[in-house]
């Protein structure tokens, strides 16, 4: 019978105890999710910083592993909280004004266009259009969408990571999806 894989918390503890392999295993579990989150949050204009911020995030994890408390939050919640903070710090250093979804209401003004052909991404071009549309989302909506879609976090944890209430997190996620569909549908119409 195969042993159950180590939990994130166990790997972190092992890392704190000096097991380098444990950290590598943990990294491999979340590398893609973390990097894509950082990269899409930064958008095309700041894409160059993605590698550094991703690395800084993992260094923070490595340094603070002993402080991780699985009773307070899951590892992905902790990881994305740190990653999100790194992105915000970067924006602050770069003096980028972080607009907090001023246009959330306008996203709901137009009706949800429903499924779009882009929901089945089968080419590089469609993939690029999808991520471009995501990078055009207001930051908070983008954050909620990325955490849900790639991070697979439940709403309660999205709320924790972004420091808002559940209702706000839910609204942001809903707006993000509606807006994405609107943008993708409009692009589709342009292409036809």
């Amino acid at each position, binding site marked *: 019978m195969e042993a159950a894989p180590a939990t994130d918390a166990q790997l972190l503890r092992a890392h704190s105890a000096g097991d380098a392999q444990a950290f590598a295993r943990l990294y491999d579990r979340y*590398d893609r999710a973390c990097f894509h989150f950082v990269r899409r949050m930064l958008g095309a204009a700041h894409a160059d910083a993605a590698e550094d911020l991703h*690395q800084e995030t*993992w*260094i923070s994890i*490595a340094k603070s592993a002993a402080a991780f408390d699985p009773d307070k939050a899951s590892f992905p919640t902790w990881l994305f909280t740190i990653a999100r903070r*790194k992105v915000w710090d970067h924006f602050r250093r770069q003096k980028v004004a972080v607009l907090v979804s001023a246009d959330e209401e306008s996203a709901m003004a137009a009706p949800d266009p429903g499924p779009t052909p882009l929901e089945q991404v089968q080419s590089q071009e469609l993939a690029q259009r*999808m991520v471009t549309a995501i990078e055009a989302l207001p930051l908070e909506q983008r954050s909620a969408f990325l955490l*849900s*879609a790639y991070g697979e976090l439940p709403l309660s944890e999205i709320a924790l990571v*972004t420091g808002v209430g559940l209702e706000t997190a839910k609204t942001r996620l809903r707006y993000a999806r509606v807006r994405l569909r609107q943008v993708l549908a409009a692009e589709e119409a342009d292409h036809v």
Partner: protein
Amino acid sequence: MSDYDVTPDPLDKAYVQAEAFLDDEEARAARRARVLAAASREAEIQTSRDRRTIWRLGGGLAAAAVGGLSVLLAMHMREASAPRPPPAPAPAPANHPAPNAPSMEASPLPAAKPTALAPPQPAKVEAETRPPAADANDLSAARPSSVVTTARRAPETMSEALPVPQSVEEPAQSRPVARAKPAAPAAMAAQAFSSAEKATAGSTSDQAARLVAAAASGRIGEVKALLERGVPVDAIDADGETALMKSIRADQPAIATLLHARGADLDRENRAGESARDMAAAKADPGLDKALGLAP
């Protein structure tokens, strides 16, 4: 399923597919190597820092021990050099009483009573410093001068004078001196400690250490008082850590908020290269983030 669970959306899957199309495995492998190497370096730094901390702690303890021993030694030497009464005679066999330790059996009332009622004699120190030989030779002089100290001592002396059988092992003259003597060195030591404390209390490093310690322990009143006294808000302790860093580490958001409001630097780094901002990030506490102005 609660209202708050995320309903899977086809868009989520589409996005994951999009990223899979755009993934660059080579870049990913290079990134992995870089991150793991950096993490490994960090672990080494952490280990060496831990070792340094242990050495520093060990050094501190050793210094404290040496300091304590020095104080004890100084006190002991002071005590040793202070004027002493003639050494008490060795307990003599009952049939050969010591000449300078007249027991009650040897001279019960006649010697003691007049002494007890006599006015205080200023000759105490003189009597104490007198060579034992003088006492040995002059019992009548030795007894009053060494037993009678002040008027306050009279009752004790009187009780000693009562015909209670007195042990030969406890010569009468040794008691008053033994009680009176420690007062002087103890008072001097207390004074020395007090003045040492006064001397260091005002020093900047001491006040900085107090600020950092108060922040770590959640003593907000002390933190406020020290800041109001002009202690720099970014003062550091031996590890190069500020009060803000300590308050974040110790989960003291109220103190962190206070220090932040007083202008504490979030980006100043400790000796390990960590800033308060890093520490707050590691805490992943939205409340703390908001308090420190880190949340968007």
